[in-house]
């Protein structure tokens, strides 16, 4: 799975879960400020990331997530790790 595919999937899921216009979701979109996700949405998003990767994401990794691009990177990293 390449990065573009992960981004497309993340974009689709975010649009679907949080009722956000898919066109407004760019890699550099900030989850809180631009996409208006609140703390409960963050819980749902973290659960979705764990469902997609099948791996429990570390709290320290979640701390650095700010943008859609960070989410994509996190998923790519976790998938690479679990594939090893």
């Amino acid at each position: 799975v390449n990065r573009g595919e992960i981004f497309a999937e993340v974009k689709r899921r975010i649009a679907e879960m949080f009722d956000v216009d898919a066109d407004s979701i760019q890699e550099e979109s900030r989850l809180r400020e631009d996409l208006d996700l609140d703390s409960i949405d963050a819980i749902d998003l973290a659960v979705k990331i764990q469902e997609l990767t099948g791996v429990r994401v570390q709290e320290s990794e979640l701390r650095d997530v700010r943008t859609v691009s960070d989410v994509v990177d996190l998923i790519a990293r976790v998938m690479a790790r679990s594939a090893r």
Partner: protein
Amino acid sequence: MQRAFAQACRGLLVASAFFFFWAGAVFLSWTVCPVLGIVYREEAARWRACQRIVNRAFWLFHAYMRVLALVEIRVAPGAGENSARPAGPCVVVANHPTLVDVTAILASFENVVCVVKSSLMNNFFVGRLLRCSGHVDGGGNEAMAGAILVQEAQRRLDAGFAVLIFPEGTRSPPGGMHPFRRGAFEVARRAAVPLWPLFLTCNPSALSKGVPVWKHPAKMARIRIHPTDAVPAGSFDARACCVEVERLLRECLKGAPPAPASAPALADSKAAGSVLAPGAAES
């Protein structure tokens, strides 16, 4: 004139109680915590040991205020059949009328951690004590703060602790409550633990939000913790449970007897025959 003098004296006494409270916290933070860090390598054992010591300090703090006829704290008998503390880990939610609700609850029930604002958790003077006691960092401005909180709370629940969260997110306005946020209920649902609502009263009103501690009432403030029926684990949808528990505590505020949250309203809305509106279980 005499009244103003008496008021000023009471204000000074309350201020002295809080001075001792913070001085004690700084003292424990920099004397006891480093020792506990060496003695207890396992975090849950360290949390328990630290809480045993801190609870004695809370007892002293409360006794000081009680002796000076400032504040008295008691747990009232539970109103419902299931109002006893659930066995094992649980999420505790409560309204938040006073500044000392946290110490009141922590001193009244063993092995409870609470969610503390990040600035206090990282405070140079007392942060170490809060971390050593196992309290949960409420998080800062991280986009994923909610998810981090859920994971941190889960770690405490796994270690057998109860996690105290004030769903209003801040102290209640006098005589009322702010709308509840869903976080505490999400934590309980995702961890599949019971949720135990407590209803707190303070009569006469004291130590409330926006009122300086030195404007303490002339009469002793009586804080009562009223346990209400616990919501069993896994039986609820977070959104519906949040609404229902808020309703329950608002009824308590109005003086109505705390009738237990109705079972159908708490049921998982994914179940057939649910009474909940569509979308309630989307999380």
